[in-house]
């Protein structure tokens, strides 16, 4: 099924296609949100919210919609909104839990746990949108063009932001004691 056919069937409210879409995208999307917001439960809620929005808003789109990028755009907006409100809560003194949970780090090989924690910490100190770009590129394998579609900017703008993000990451990650680095 082509992207246009898929969008058309979704626009027509076809539940089978919607089910298939959820099954296909839920894991990479939830993973992306988890790494972005740093909280597994929040990520699961945001992923569900994303699919609800997809169902509700797909009727207002056109057939040539880049579906994948559009869904990730909705998810990214949810993620960035969550991070913004979270930072606001921290500013006014609410007790907000740690930015990432350990489940991200312990899911892989034992020798990588520390590196994974440090990488997440370093990403957490970047601007959320820069972190989102790095997560999409390194975590979900998106090209600059695809990221551009997600963020509604040009590939060139993504390239610049990516460079800025990597450089900031390098500086922040560089502050971590060298014995802890990979």
């Amino acid at each position: 099924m082509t992207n246009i056919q898929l969008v058309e069937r979704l626009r027509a409210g076809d539940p089978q296609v919607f089910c298939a879409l959820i099954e296909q995208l839920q894991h990479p999307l939830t993973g992306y949100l988890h790494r972005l917001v740093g909280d597994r439960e929040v990520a699961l809620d945001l992923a569900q919210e994303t699919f609800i929005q997809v169902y509700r808003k797909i009727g207002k789109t056109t057939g040539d919609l880049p579906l994948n990028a559009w869904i990730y755009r909705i998810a990214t907006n949810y993620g960035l909104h969550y991070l913004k409100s979270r930072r606001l809560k921290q500013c006014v003194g609410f007790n907000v839990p740690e930015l990432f949970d350990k489940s991200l780090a312990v899911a892989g090989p034992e020798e990588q746990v520390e590196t994974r924690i440090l990488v997440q910490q370093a990403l957490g100190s970047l601007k959320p949108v820069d972190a989102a770009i790095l997560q999409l590129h390194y975590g979900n394998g998106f090209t600059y063009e695809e990221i551009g579609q997600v963020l509604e900017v040009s590939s060139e703008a993504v390239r610049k932001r990516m460079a800025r993000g990597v450089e900031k990451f390098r500086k922040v990650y560089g502050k971590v004691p060298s014995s802890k680095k990979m």
Partner: protein
Amino acid sequence: MAEYSKKLHTTYGDMIAIIQGQHLEDSPTIQQHLCDCPQCQQRLFELSQTNRTLDVIGQMARDQRYPELSPERVLVYARHGIQKKIRGNIDPDSLLNQYIAYEIKKIKRSSFFAASFASLSLLIIVVGILIILIGNTLLGLTISATVGITGIFLFMFLNKVRKAYKQIDKLSKELQEEKVVSRNLSIDNEACE
């Protein structure tokens, strides 16, 4: 080329593109500069290390596991505009109960504000009447306006309650039919498969 090579250092964007094997328009010029410039070579080395570190994100993505979302539930939420969302297996009765509890909580919150506002308005009215009795017309008009605004707020509140009950009623019927969700919405497991 020589001028570029001497004067301009390679940007981080270009370096990342080189590390990731992407095509660059000025590739020969940049490569030449990198051969000639120890400073850029050092930066390229550092950046390639950072790039390797960032590859950990991809490995994290591959190792992550999550519980399955229920397409049925997502469709119910989307179609009925339910704001209070619960993950986990769908049970129409418990979903309805939780939804009712959520709506009641909302109504209670609204009623608290409506009651507070009504009490305040009442106090203003009493004070206003006392002032009118003394003979001040302007304050009398202010009080009339206040009464009007209070009326609007109370109307809005009652309307909210009416809508909430209507929504609960509608949902209740739909969920009853739907023990459901599947057949009416054509999205039981077979449909999903």
